[in-house]
């Protein structure tokens, strides 16, 4: 289990991360969200021992992360880097061996992963000859080939097309099922919600949200309503507690001040009988993220 306790990092008088506490159990996925500069990468860098915390602790099974333990961490940096003039095999094997894997096992695993991730090309191809998508897959293979116990992914879906995003998610799920602890950052809220068991939202270094995505959404109540019904917008607007009505597709998206207002709308909309859609849900993670980010926000998303 990874325990991060009261982690703080100051750069001179600027606080990059302020009192972050989180735990990550085996087989659990933690999504770290926040605007650029919120402290996500700083958190990763402290876990990886690239920089030292100003205060707080990071432990793995109640002990500081040792050099040996560090070889069990797979890290995918935000800005991807590969040796352009080397072959796929040369560099993946080098990275795998640095993580303590034998050359023989790495070779076997590389072939398996290339097949599973549908990489076009041979192991003897130089990276500079690969397409962007295939190079990204090789980067992922380099990160996961040794089946890491702890996986840190900094913006893993950045720049990926939908097919590669799905493949990446599939691999993350597979590692999760095997018991790996996974910590990742992303701006793709749909992806975060889909993958994460828990999320932590940082804003200017401070933790503003933490918990299971369903619980977090539930905290905000079922204040989002999508309605497809033969009723005038003007009639809806007269109902107290409606904050906004926005046309969306064949219907309207209604933002409520209180979930109970939904009952009034339902009665009005179904007064004449059948309606195609009445969906009352908590706000999406994306909406919550936007709302939290814009509260006292001094920068843009």
């Amino acid at each position, binding site marked *: 289990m990874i325990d991060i306790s009261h982690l703080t990092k100051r750069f001179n008088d600027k606080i990059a991360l302020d009192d972050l506490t989180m735990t990550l159990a085996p087989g659990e996925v933690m999504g770290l969200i926040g605007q650029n500069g919120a402290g996500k990468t700083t958190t990763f860098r402290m876990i990886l021992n690239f920089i030292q915390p100003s205060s707080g602790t990071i432990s793995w099974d109640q002990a500081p992360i040792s050099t040996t333990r*560090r070889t069990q961490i797979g890290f995918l940096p935000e800005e991807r*880097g590969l040796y352009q003039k080397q072959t796929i095999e040369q560099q993946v094997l080098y990275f795998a061996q640095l993580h303590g894997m034998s050359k023989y096992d790495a070779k076997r695993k590389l072939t398996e992963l290339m097949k599973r991730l549908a990489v076009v090309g041979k192991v003897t191809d130089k990276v500079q000859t690969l397409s962007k998508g295939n190079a990204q897959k090789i980067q992922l293979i380099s990160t996961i080939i040794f089946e890491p116990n702890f996986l840190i992914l900094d913006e893993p879906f950045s720049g990926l097309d939908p097919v590669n995003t799905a493949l990446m998610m599939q691999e993350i799920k597979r590692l999760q099922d095997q018991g790996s602890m996974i910590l990742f950052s992303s701006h793709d809220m749909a992806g975060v919600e889909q993958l994460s068991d828990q999320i932590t939202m940082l804003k200017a270094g401070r933790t503003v949200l933490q918990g299971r995505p369903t619980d977090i959404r539930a905290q905000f109540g079922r204040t989002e309503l999508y309605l497809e019904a033969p009723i005038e917008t003007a009639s809806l607007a007269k109902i107290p507690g409606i904050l906004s009505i926005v046309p969306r597709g064949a219907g309207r998206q209604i933002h409520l001040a209180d979930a109970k207002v939904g009952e009034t709308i339902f009665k009005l909309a179904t007064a004449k009988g059948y309606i195609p859609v009445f969906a009352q849900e908590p706000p999406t993670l994306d909406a919550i993220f936007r709302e939290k980010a814009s509260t006292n926000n001094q920068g843009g998303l």
Partner: protein
Amino acid sequence: MFWKQLWLVIHHTFTQRLKSVGYWSLVLMPALSVLAVAAVFFILNMGNQQKTPTMTIVNQPALSHYLKEQKQLDLHIKSSDDLTATKKSLHQEKIAAYLTTNKGRYQLIKGAKTEDLDDQHLRTLLQDYTFLQRATALHLSPQQVTHLTEPVTIDTQVLNNQGQAKKDNQSANYALTSVLAIVIFFFLTYYVGLIANEIANEKSSRIMEILLAASSPAVQFFGKLGGIGLLALLHASIYLILGSIAFMCFPNNEFLIRAKNQFSNLDPTFLIFTLLMVLITIFLYMVLTAIVAAMVNDLSQVQQAVTPVTTLALVSYALTFMVNGQAHNGLITVLSFLPFESQSLMPARLALNYASPLQAWLSLAIAVITLVLLAYYGLRLYTRNVLTYQEGNLSKAAFATFLNLFKKN
């Protein structure tokens, strides 16, 4: 785990560069250049042999016989007693020149298209011939002539610090130093660039983050130095092997014989000291370069970063050729004790007996201590900078870095 990872980084750095065309171009370029120059000389000699000029000696059969016997002139010597026919031959360019004598004076007549006729040698031989003729006229015996012309001999002895005679190996030692100064500068220029590019490439492409996630900065720092150090060692070994092959294959080559004679008097202690000094200095420069390269943000800054390092090496290189005759030069004396400059200055001063062996070993000890300290504090700087991307120019970053040298993270 440290040693296993260290070996992996050394192996990876070494093998990747070993497979590159750039490395082999550099290693083989001097050898190929020597071969190319030798080929050009060979072709020119072939051409010259086909066109060895002819010189006719008119009405002097004894002189003609003497010149032929000496075999020192690069000329065909012909004898003739017909001046008119000889002049005609010169006009028709059948001969390159003719030589006549008149009342003890020689007259050399060359054709319009005749180039150098080895005039200097000819003048010396005529001088000798005239001397012999005059000696004969004075009825001197061959023994008396030999005695007259016998060169004086000078026995040179060099005394060591205890006042005892020792072998005169000053010129051999200084020659080695001069050769090494060139070799060291050549090696440093290339390997400083290589290590800087290696680190800057991994840093700018963010591969360093992946490497440091799995290993420690010490593994990467010393692994890179080890890998590049092995390449330099292989490079030097290849030249030693090629040199040995050349000595075995061309034992009668004039240049090789001269080189062998030049270095046969080398003092073994001097050789060991100099090689140790070179080795330590190469590592010093590599460590310094690794520290500097960790500060660059991208490959475009590599040249800017390594220029001060190569300039340091250039100072020592240039001053080494000025040591002779500068026994009391204060600047050279001080620099010969300073690491990064002592590598050829101290061996040069030692070779010329301007420095004592004790002073030489002291300069080596200073270099070793500097290397240890530089490696220790250098690792700190490397760790601090290798994942830091500074804005602004490199000089400011370097200044800030060195100010924080003794601070812990």
